[in-house]
C-alpha cells in the first residue's frame, strides 16, 4: 500500500511537469494551428532564467586571502556576493538562497518577450505552410536555442537548489499510520505540484472568465467568423503564444531544484509532451492536463521493481504503449475535438 501511495505521489509531480508543458503546447496548437517543436526549448529557457538570476544574485566581489592558497599555490581569491555586502550575510544569503522562487518574477516578462519574438519573428511566416514545414522550422529553432544556451552555460548540469527551507521531505507515512520513512515525499515536489495546479487553473480561469479569454476561445472554434466581427484575433493569438511561453518557462523555473538544468533538458521533455498532447487530444486543454497526470502516474508505476521484473523494459515504453492504445480506440485522443488535425 505504501509503495502505491508513493508512486501516485511521484506520478503527480511528474504529471504536473508534463501537463504544464503540454498545456502550452496545445494552447499554441489550438489557437495558431502551429505544431511547435520549439516548446521544449521554452521550458529550458525558463529553467535558465533561474540559473541566470542565481548567477546575477551571486555576483561577487573578489578579495585576496593571503592565509589560504589556491591550486597553484597563489593566495586564494575569495568571492563574496555583493548582496551579502550590501544587505549583510543573513539577508544577502537568503536572497541568493531564494533565487529560484524569485526567478518566477523574472521569468514571466522574459518568457512573454521570448514568446512574442518567436511568434512575430519566425513562426507567423509559417501559419499557412504545411505542418511538416512548421515542425522543421520549430525543431531547427529549438536546436539553435539550445546551442545558444550551451555556448553561454556549457553542457554540464548546473546545480540550482531550492531554498534551504524546502530541502528535505515530509513523512506522510507517519500521518497515515505507517512506520517512519515508509512514505516520504520531498517538500519541493509538493510545492511544484501545488504551483502547477495554480498555474493550470489560472490559465483555465483566464480563458473562461475574461472577455479576452472568451474571444480567444471563440477564435479557436471559428477564427474566420471572429475575424469578420472586426476583432483582431491574430493579435490575441500572439498574446496567447506569449502566455503559453510563460507557462512553459515557469514550469522550467520551478523544475530546476528537481533536476539540475542543462541545455538539453527541453528535448528530454519535448517528445513526451507531444505524446501527452496526442493522448489528451490535439487542441484540447483539459485533455492535455488529464493526459499529463495520467501518463505521469503510469510512468511511475511502470518504474517499480515489480513492474520491471514482470515486464522488462516496460518503464521505457509505457507512455508510447498507452499512446498506441488510446489512438487505436479513440483516434482523437481522450478529449480531442472533432475536426482538429483531421483535414
Amino acid at each position, binding site marked *: 500500500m505504501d509503495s502505491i501511495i*508513493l508512486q501516485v505521489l*511521484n506520478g503527480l509531480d511528474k504529471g504536473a511537469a508534463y501537463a504544464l508543458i503540454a498545456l502550452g503546447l496545445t494552447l499554441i496548437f489550438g489557437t495558431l494551428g502551429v505544431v511547435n517543436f520549439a516548446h521544449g526549448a521554452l521550458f529550458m529557457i525558463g529553467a535558465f532564467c533561474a540559473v541566470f538570476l542565481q548567477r546575477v544574485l551571486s555576483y561577487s566581489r573578489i578579495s585576496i586571502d593571503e592565509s589560504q592558497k589556491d*591550486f597553484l599555490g597563489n593566495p586564494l581569491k575569495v568571492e563574496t556576493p555583493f548582496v551579502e555586502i550590501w544587505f549583510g550575510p543573513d539577508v544577502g544569503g537568503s536572497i541568493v538562497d531564494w533565487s529560484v522562487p524569485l526567478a518566477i518574477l523574472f521569468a514571466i516578462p522574459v518568457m512573454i518577450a521570448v514568446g512574442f519574438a518567436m511568434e512575430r519573428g519566425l513562426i507567423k511566416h509559417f501559419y499557412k505552410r504545411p505542418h511538416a514545414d512548421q515542425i522543421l522550422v520549430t525543431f531547427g529553432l529549438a536546436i539553435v536555442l539550445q546551442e545558444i544556451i550551451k555556448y553561454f552555460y556549457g553542457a554540464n548540469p548546473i546545480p540550482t537548489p531550492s531554498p534551504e527551507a524546502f530541502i528535505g521531505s515530509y513523512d506522510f507515512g507517519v500521518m497515515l499510520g505507517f512506520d517512519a520513512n515508509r512514505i516520504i515525499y520531498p517538500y519541493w515536489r509538493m510545492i511544484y505540484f501545488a504551483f502547477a495546479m495554480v498555474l493550470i487553473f489560472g490559465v483555465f480561469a483566464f480563458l473562461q472568465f475574461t472577455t479576452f479569454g472568451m474571444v480567444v476561445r471563440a477564435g479557436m472554434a471559428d477564427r474566420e467568423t471572429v475575424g469578420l466581427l472586426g476583432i483582431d484575433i491574430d493579435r490575441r493569438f500572439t498574446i496567447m503564444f506569449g502566455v503559453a511561453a510563460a507557462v512553459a518557462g515557469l514550469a522550467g523555473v520551478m523544475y530546476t531544484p528537481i533536476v539540475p538544468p542543462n541545455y538539453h533538458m527541453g528535448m528530454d521533455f519535448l517528445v513526451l509532451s507531444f505524446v501527452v498532447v496526442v493522448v489528451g487530444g490535439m487542441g484540447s486543454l483539459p485533455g492535455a492536463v488529464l493526459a499529463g497526470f495520467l501518463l505521469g502516474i503510469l510512468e511511475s508505476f511502470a518504474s517499480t521493481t515489480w513492474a520491471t521484473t514482470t515486464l522488462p523494459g516496460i518503464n521505457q515504453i509505457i507512455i508510447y504503449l498507452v499512446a498506441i492504445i488510446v489512438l487505436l480506440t479513440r483516434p482523437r485522443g481522450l478529449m480531442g475535438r472533432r475536426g482538429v488535425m483531421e483535414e
Partner: protein
Amino acid sequence: MSKTDLTRRGVLRTGAAGIGALATPVIFTGAATAASHTGFTNAPTGRNVTLGFNVPQTGPYADEGADELLAQQLAVEHLNGEGDGGCLNTFSSKALRGNGILGKKVTFVTGDTQTKSDAARASAKSMIEKDGAIMINGGSSSGVAVAVQGLCQEAGVIFMAGLTHANDTTGKDRKANGFRHFFNAYMSGAALAPVLANEMGRDRRAYHLTADYNWGWTQEESIVASTEALGWETVETVKTPLASTDFSSYITPVLNSGADVLVLNHYGGNMVNSLTNAVQGFDLLSKQVNGKDFKIVVPLYSELMATGAGRNIKGVLGSMNYNWQLPNNGSKAFVRSFGEKYGKPPSNSAQTCYAQVLLYADAVERAGSFNPCAVVEALEGFEFDGLGNGKTLYRAADHQCFKDVLVVRGAENPKSAYDTLEIVEITPVAQVTYPPDHAMFGGRSATLGSCNPGA
C-alpha cells in the same frame, strides 16, 4: 598587331603535353609516398606527424571533451618543446626531448565523438583516412572506446583510450592496437570496498541503481562482487534507462526495501540527477535505517559531475583515476602547467589524455619507429612514473595500466569551485590488481589478437 595561329591539332598537342608535364611530378610523388607507406598505415613522410584527438565536442559530455582537448593540446606543445615542458621534466623515461616525435613536429586534428559509437567511429575513420592520423586518443565513454578501438585495430593505427571505465575495454573487447591508462570498474570496487567497510561496517544492505548500458552493468557487477565479499547483502539491483532525467520513481522503492546504502552506478547527467533527487529531494542522507545512518556511494566520480551535483555530494564516497590534489611531483608539474595555461586545475579525463599522448610519443621514441607493432611492443610491460599517478605498469597481457586508485569523498567545506572532492585514500596498486583472465574481463577466451600495422 600580332597574329596567333590556333589550330585544333595544335591545341590538342599543347594541352596533352601540358597535362603530361603537370601529371609527372604527381605520379612520381605518388610512387615515392607509396614506397614509404609500405609496412604500416599513415607512415609520416614529411616533417610532421599527425595525431587524431577524438573527443566529445557536442552532446552531454562536451565540457569533458573540451577539457580533454585542452590537455591534448598541452601535450602537443610539450612534445614540440613549447611551454614549460610539463611532465616531460618528471617522466621517468627520458626518451622525449621536446623536439617532436622522432624529430618530426607534432600536429593534430580533432574529431567529435558526440558520445555516440557510430559518430565516434566515423570521425576517427575520417581522421585516419583523410588527415593521415597515426594515433587516435580521447573519448568519454566506454561504448565509444570499444567502437573506436575496434576501428583502429582494423585500420592499423594505435588507439590510446581516454575516459573509459567499463571492464570490457581491456576485458572481452581488448585489442592489440588499443591501450587504456584510465582505471576500470573492477578497480573501483576493489579500492572502495575496504574504505566502505571501515566507514560503514560489514553489516550493510545495498540497493543498486544502475544505468542500463554496458558500463553500468560492469560497474554494478564489480561493486556487487566487492561489497558482497565484505559481507554486505545486495537487496536489489535496478536498471534505469539511460535517458532518465527524474529518478524519483526509482528512489522511492529504496525507502521500503530495507536497504541502508544506495549505490548509484550512474555517470554524467544521470549521476547528477539521481544524486540530486536522493539527497536534495528525498533527503536520504538524514535517514536512519536498520539503526544505521543511510549512506550513498557513487563508485565513479568526475570533477564535472561533482560540480553539477553541487552540495549534494558532501560526504558521498566514490573513486577516481586521478585528482589534481595528488601530491606527487608528476601531478604537481602537470597541474602547474595546465593551471597556468588555462586558469583551472585539470580533470581526471584531461590527465588521462595528456598521459596517453606522452606515453604514445615516448613509446615511438623508444621503439625508434612509428610502426604500430613496434609501438605496441614498446608499451607492453612498460613501467613508468612521473605522469601524475605514481608508479604505473602497462600490463602486456591486456594493455591495462595498473597504478594506485583514489578513493574520494565530496568535500564538506570546499574553499573554491575546484576542491569539491577530497582524497580519502590512495589505494595501493596491489589491492586493485587482478589476473588477465579474470571472469569479469572475458575469462580465458579474451585475447588481444595480433597487432595490425595496417597499410
